[in-house]
């Protein structure tokens, strides 16, 4: 980490009054690990609803006559079939198929797209996008102007509905509505998306409105609980939602990371990484992301080595924790493809010991 002062979201000054514990450096941002406790917040989101400040996420607007062409060239998913007010999860790859970032593309208008990117990748993504810039396109970094709150959980729709006349049940998954009025705030983008494996919404509002929005939401219903980074991570982990820097990186392709569904080899126009990804798809990826359950004792953590039952090194843990919902010690691991079959017995090196584990089905948690 550098010595640069940590960046603060527009909600930073409110954290203390909502009981935030442990403000940490998360990719250069000062963010709370938890408010009550990680496990408590995790269950709140699975059973009721939680509110997350995710304003550190980056927003990049791509606008102009060639906007769709540029976005479709950069992204592995098919952007041309998006309707206005529809969002799509996609990877953005290098020529060799390694991943620049994973992100959501929002189609705001025919010639206007909003990319929601990982906080730690904002500068890298902007450089990458600019290096493929076309005439008739403007690329604007709106990250410093747009705040994002996520309200997630089975009760999220009912709680959010208390603040608006817009009928939220009509917003289908991966659809959104622009310029929604929430409480007294008139210009919120309300998107039925999330990173927890539950139903919920992500709300994009100008920085100046973020504090009012946070307060109004928590005042509207006491079932809604403020949540920190810790629960965000355990929730996304159980749902097997990739985290860039762990499941994905410049040396991990979308096929390896289990998000091959974002790669549309046959889409109508060329895209960066197409040749490498086409070849990988034909040959089958050499490594696969699998779920591991620890049979012995210990918790797998990011970076721990994975061995076959005959003690050969076969991969590494990308993410791991004690799963609050399933109550087991679970990990995601990137392993050689021949060890990816369900039921395969492997070993994880936890400190100095090799601990038995087995390949299990993922996602670990699926909403009913």
């Amino acid at each position: 980490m550098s010595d640069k002062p940590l960046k603060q979201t527009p909600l930073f000054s409110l954290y203390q009054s909502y009981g935030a514990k442990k403000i940490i450096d998360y990719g250069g941002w000062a963010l709370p690990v938890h408010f009550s406790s990680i496990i408590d917040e995790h269950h709140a989101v699975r059973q009721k609803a939680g509110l997350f400040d995710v304003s550190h996420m980056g927003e990049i607007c791509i606008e102009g006559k060639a906007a769709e062409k540029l976005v479709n060239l950069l992204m592995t998913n098919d952007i041309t079939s998006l309707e206005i007010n529809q969002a799509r999860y996609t990877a953005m790859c290098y020529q060799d198929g390694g991943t620049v970032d994973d992100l959501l593309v929002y189609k705001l208008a025919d010639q206007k797209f909003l990319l929601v990117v990982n906080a730690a990748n904002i500068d890298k993504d902007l450089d990458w996008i600019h290096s493929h810039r076309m005439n008739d396109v403007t690329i604007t970094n709106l990250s410093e102007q747009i705040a994002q709150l996520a309200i997630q959980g089975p009760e999220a729709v009912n709680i959010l509905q208390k603040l608006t006349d817009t009928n939220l049940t009509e917003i289908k998954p991966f659809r959104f509505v622009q310029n929604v009025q929430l409480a007294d705030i008139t210009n919120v983008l309300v998107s039925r998306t999330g990173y927890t494996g539950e139903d919920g919404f992500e709300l994009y509002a100008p920085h100046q409105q973020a504090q009012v929005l946070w307060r109004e939401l928590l005042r509207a219903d006491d079932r809604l609980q403020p949540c920190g980074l810790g629960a965000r991570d355990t929730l996304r982990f159980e749902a097997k939602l990739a985290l860039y820097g762990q499941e994905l990186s410049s040396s991990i392709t979308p096929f390896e990371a289990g998000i091959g569904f974002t790669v549309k080899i046959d889409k109508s126009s060329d895209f960066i990484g197409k040749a490498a990804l086409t070849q990988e798809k034909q040959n089958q990826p050499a490594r696969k992301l699998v779920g591991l359950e620890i049979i012995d004792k210990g918790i797998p953590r990011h970076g721990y080595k994975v061995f076959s039952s005959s003690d050969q090194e076969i991969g590494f843990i990308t993410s791991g924790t004690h799963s609050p919902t399933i109550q087991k010690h679970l990990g995601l691991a990137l392993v050689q493809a021949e060890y990816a079959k369900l039921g395969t017995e492997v070993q994880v090196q936890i400190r100095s010991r090799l601990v038995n584990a087995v390949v299990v089905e993922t996602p670990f948690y699926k909403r009913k």
Partner: protein
Amino acid sequence: MTNTQLRFTKKHEWVLPLDEERARIGITNHAQEELGDIVFVENAEINQQVNAHDSLGVIESVKAASEFYAPLSGEIVAINEQLEDEPERINDDPYQDGWLVEIAYNKPQELETLLTEADYQAFLSEEE
């Protein structure tokens, strides 16, 4: 929690001498708060010989793994077996139910090097 016999380390363990030979060890309330929800303890083993400052085991929270250390030299004579199924006892009651090990200490002079509660509190406020 105000037991005048309690002693502390700068690594956030507490030590309670039970008699002339035996002391109970745990982690402080500050330490459990820093760790958050504790979900697994890899404890020391009975009969293990330890020197002061040796690693005794690992306490894992949802987020991270953290080692704890021997405040005294000697032999491990008891471990809190209830932590195997209920590691959250450390969060709920770090000074009683959440104890970790008992050591038969063989260098009583090491007790003198530990912090009193007042010293430990002062150390904590310096750290912040």
